């Protein structure tokens, strides 16, 4: 937290900005989680189902952190530190999705198998499974990025469209579900996620076509 004041003393305004940005992020992520934790539906679910549901909500929250890190919008995290945090958050996102799918599989195997086979009656299942495959592919590509010697431009051309699709599919998945998430907090988180992702993608694009 004090690294940014290493070179030059932190101004009062900068300190305020830092607290404001981090405070806002904590609230933006804590409210949907808190509302979900208060859902009456939890009373009628066994622990593995609750874990599965919350892993999905955490995944959606982690998705919002990614573009903020890419934008350098989180004070104290910039440059190499932000890149490392983006990578770590990416790993956490993959873990959250794997946990989401595994726990829901244990909760109701036929429903999860239908979803994975694109044979579920619910559109949100299809959207969710498509988003899952895209996240896994994006993670795999990130791990292989060096070995494949992907140029920054090449990487952008693969990563940015994937990100847009993942965010769109995930928001569709979440919004169509009647679950523990509150309607308004879900919409707010989704709106912020879309805005942050599109801003980050926009800023990552070169000014002129190359």
């Amino acid at each position, binding site marked *: 937290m004090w690294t940014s004041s290493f070179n030059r003393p932190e101004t009062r305004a900068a300190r305020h900005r830092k607290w404001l940005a981090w405070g806002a992020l904590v609230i933006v992520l804590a409210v949907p989680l808190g509302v979900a934790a208060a859902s009456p539906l939890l009373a*009628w679910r066994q622990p593995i189902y609750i874990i599965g549901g919350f892993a999905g909500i955490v995944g959606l929250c982690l998705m919002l952190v990614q573009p903020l890190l890419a934008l350098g919008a989180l004070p104290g995290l910039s440059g190499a530190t932000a890149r490392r945090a983006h990578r770590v958050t990416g790993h956490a996102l993959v873990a959250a999705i794997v946990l989401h799918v595994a726990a829901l599989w244990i909760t109701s195997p036929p429903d999860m198998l239908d979803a994975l086979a694109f044979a579920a009656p619910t559109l949100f299942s299809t959207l969710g499974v498509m988003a899952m495959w895209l996240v896994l592919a994006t993670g795999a590509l990130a791990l292989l990025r060096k070995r494949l010697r992907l140029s920054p431009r090449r990487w952008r051309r693969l990563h940015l469209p994937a990100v847009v699709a993942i965010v769109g599919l995930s928001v569709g998945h979440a919004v169509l579900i009647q679950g523990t998430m509150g309607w308004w907090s879900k919409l707010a988180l989704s709106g912020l996620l879309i805005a942050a992702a599109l801003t980050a993608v926009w800023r990552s694009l070169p000014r002129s076509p190359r």
Partner: protein
Amino acid sequence: MSSLIQTRRRLLGLVGGTVGAAALGGLSVPASAAGLAPTPTMRGGANNYRPGAPVVDRIGGGGFLMTGTVRRAGDGAPLPGQRIQIWAHTTEGHERDPESHGATLTDDEGRFTMDMPQIVPAFGQAHGHLAYDSGDFQTVFLRPVMSSPRDTTLHVDFVLQPA
């Protein structure tokens, strides 16, 4: 099911078809010329099915009313004495729990009712499961979705065709 997604084109077709079917679902018109059309089995209808659920007066403590009719395809004649199995995720248990399952028989006019615990949303939708599988007619699995999770009744119509 894995054969459905062997190629990317197939996957895209499947996804496009799903979206298209969802969009067109509201526009479909039931067949009428050849008489009453049989009810098709719904996707996911058989999930967490347990064969041979016992005939019961009610499932658990009751409070939610599942109602329905069973008729014959073609002439629409009511079918009395038909066994309908019902299960759902409710305030008293999960779909997989044996005590969430029960069966009932249709009356002389082909109607059935089941008093059961309140259905609550599970796997993203508040829905019930019903099955006809006694063999005289073709097996049908249904998965009706409640228009609101606060509903305390759900009505389901079966139209069966001889096996």
